[in-house]
């Protein structure tokens, strides 16, 4: 049963990656233009530093992609490149490769997104469980309206508000970037502190919004779970409130919450991209923003593909972990 389940999950993952790559390949071609030449020419017409290498680049790309060959040959070559994560050069940052640029940005995003997602999921789930629990202190109910409000705000709007209050009005925290201009990346206390100070606002704007969502979701699930027969029977068993809360209510209510996490990853990521842009945080989102602005087709493709693969992997991990939480799952067909 397990192997079956795993195989199906991996299959879906491969399918998604393939679809993403294919979409990436065909959609730009739908506009009927030669993607490389069009982009390069446009870049050239804007003038500037890339002009000198233009002809060489067009040759380079045409040779590499075989743009004179039939479409299906191009497609096969493309799939081959993509499967090796080979996205060639960035147009706007020639001669740097797309991979180099992405590799530089990824740690920023992974740390920001990883920390905030884990934090907001944990805090939100716990808060939601307590909000539904009759034994929790009464003042906790006061948290409901702010959670509703936060939940309704998009990430980037809260980001702007936080930026206005903490960075502009009170000037407590830096406003832009991943570290102060002029600071040299090094593993010194000073630099780490500087990075943290820059990360607080972007992180906060994600954590606050997401926590509200997780708390409300968990609260709903807890209310349903507390009405289940096994909770009534647990009480008739004379179990302590703590046991009933943790092992019977939270333990079951967290299952749909985990499923929701897998579904929400895409949305969290979309929101985080915008937060990065607002704060000029040097992660993948900001790179993407610049790439779009400068029409850097290959960089856009590289980022989009990388992100989809990363998300697929994250979803896959959640899917594989889920049967450990819910023993019924390996029997169920999806």
């Amino acid at each position, binding site marked *: 049963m397990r192997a079956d389940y795993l195989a199906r999950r991996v299959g*879906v993952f491969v399918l*998604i990656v393939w*679809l993403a790559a294919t*979409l*990436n390949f065909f*959609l*730009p071609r*739908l*506009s009927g233009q030669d993607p490389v030449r069009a982009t390069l020419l446009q870049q050239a017409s804007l003038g500037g530093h890339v002009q000198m290498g233009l002809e060489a680049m067009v040759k380079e790309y045409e040779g590499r992609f075989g743009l004179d060959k039939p479409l299906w040959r191009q497609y096969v070559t493309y799939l081959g490149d993509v499967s090796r994560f080979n996205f060639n050069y960035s147009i706007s940052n020639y001669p740097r490769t797309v991979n180099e640029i992405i590799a530089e940005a990824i740690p920023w995003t992974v740390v920001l997104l990883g920390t905030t997602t884990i934090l907001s999921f944990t805090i939100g789930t716990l808060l939601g469980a307590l909000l539904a629990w009759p034994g929790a202190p009464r003042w906790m109910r006061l948290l409901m309206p702010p959670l509703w409000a936060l939940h309704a705000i*998009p990430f980037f709007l809260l980001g*702007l*508000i936080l*930026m*206005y*209050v903490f960075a*502009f009005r009170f000037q407590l925290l*830096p*406003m*832009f970037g991943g570290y102060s*201009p002029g600071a040299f990346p090094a593993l010194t206390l000073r630099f780490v502190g500087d990075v943290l100070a820059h990360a607080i606002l972007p992180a906060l704007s994600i954590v606050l919004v997401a926590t509200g969502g997780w708390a409300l979701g968990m609260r709903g699930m807890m209310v349903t779970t507390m009405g*289940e*027969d*096994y909770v*009534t*029977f*647990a009480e*008739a*068993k*004379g*179990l*302590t409130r703590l*046991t009933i809360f943790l*092992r*019977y209510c939270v*333990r*079951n209510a967290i*299952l749909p919450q985990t499923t929701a996490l897998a*579904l929400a*990853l*895409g*949305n969290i*990521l*979309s929101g985080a*991209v*915008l937060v990065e*842009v*607002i704060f*000029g945080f040097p992660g993948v989102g900001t790179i*993407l*923003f610049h790439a*779009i*602005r400068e029409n850097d087709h290959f960089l*856009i493709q590289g980022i*989009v593909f990388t992100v*989809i693969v990363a*998300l697929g992997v994250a979803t896959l991990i959640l899917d594989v972990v889920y049967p450990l939480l*819910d*023993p*019924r799952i390996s*029997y169920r067909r999806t």
Partner: protein
Amino acid sequence: MRAPSAAHPFGTDRQGRDLFAAMVAGTPLTLRIGFIAGFLGVGIGAMLGFVSAYYRGTLDAVIRGVVDIGLTVPGLLVLIIIAVSLRRGLTVDQMAIIVASLAWLNPARTIRAQVLSMRERGYVEVARLSGMSGPEIIVKELMPNLLPYLAATLVNSVSAAILASIGLEVLGLGPIDSPTLGMTLYWVNFNAALSRADRDHPGRLSRSLLPHGGPGRDRQPQAAESDLTTDVLSVRDLCVHYDTPLGAVKAADHVTFGLRAGERLGIAGESGSGKSTMALAILRMIKPPGRIAAGEVKLDGVDLMTLSDEEMRRVRLDRIALIPQGSMNALNPVIRIKEQIADALRDHRVRMSARETETRVRELLESVGLRAEVADMFPHELSGGMKQRACIAIAISLSPRVIIADEPTSALDVVVQKQVMETLARVQENLGASVILVGHDMGLMAQFVDRLGVMYAGKLIEVSPVREIFTRPLHPYTRMLIASLPSLEQKGTFRGIPGLIPLLRDLPPGCAFHPRCPQAFDRCLTEEPALLEKHPGGWAACHLT
């Protein structure tokens, strides 16, 4: 670029465009995108959801597959690919369509799930048998019930579409020539925020965007007096009320009975008679809006109503155990059987090593006729009868004085029912415990209990030894209830009780049974009969006897 002022409440951007004016002009455009995309999304999603769930089969599999995969992919990124490919000369409406291209996924998934759960309802089948066609059933039977849900989905969908469009536009992938809200943000960002020059003057963006200065019935029948002193459990005048806007509903009204050591007492009644409420009230497990309004429940002379919550908790399972209804999912689906027994032991401070606990769990399971391997299983791996045996094993784990079995075999097949009841009888005899069997099956009562109480509309109307109740019932209701049972001996011997079971919130005056009673007379219409001992051991609440 100027700061907010009286003339420009939100300030201006670098080109000197008034941001307030930009927002006034942009809001309708953004709303337009949101509404077009939202409506398109819900429209397409609803259609696919309906078709997928109603017709099922291959079509459903294909639609579901596409939707599942579509939802796994981060929407914004797909929209980026689409928008980048098409972006030159994008209009507001094209923008809306781009957003809509993914907006149908979520509605399709949720509406499909809703329709799927609804099409299993009996009324769809009835409509088909009444001659309705498929599309007609969708429109006339399913749609009306889905309308509120569709409306909610629409609101969500529009707001999601607005956020998605703003997201795209902030990245510069919007209709360049239209001042939608997101494009305004983009121009501000493009021109100011992210230019390197601005890093040194980090105030402008916010100043230009945000407003300056702030973020923004009462007669009591006489209680039956009997030799309750020797009883293990004595319930006296127990009243459970449910508070409703129309006043308190008496789910159990002055219920009084005693339970002797080792005795099997049955409490029988139809739906709404208050039998299950009474079972939960003895364990003090009535949840709001219900409450125990009055009465006492004495266990070995101690009134449980006077105990603290913590003391009461320890009484449960240790002194009074519950066997839940057979139709319930009373076992935690994600915890192994052995742990569900072990946590009961642990919370009652039974000091045992892990090995001892393991041994005890196996003993308990074997004593109810289950194999020891069941300990390591999850509830979904057991059949209905096995689950119920596991519940019995939990109930007897601390050798209680009283076992309350609330319809323990409902939803089980008769063959399995017999096995489960035999198991219950045996463990009871081994423990010397008393049993209260709550149920509606008079046959089961006749075969299992020693004494039987019959409840009607929240009141105990007869308590007699079981042999007597089936030979010479005292209350007309008991007599008619027994007569309504089909026999296997001869045909044509069963006859229903005319009329309807009264609603607790709207009880007739006098005896609650009088509208259905063939022997009712004047007194029954006005005076409520008290539960009185009519002959030694036989109690009834009826004016006739």
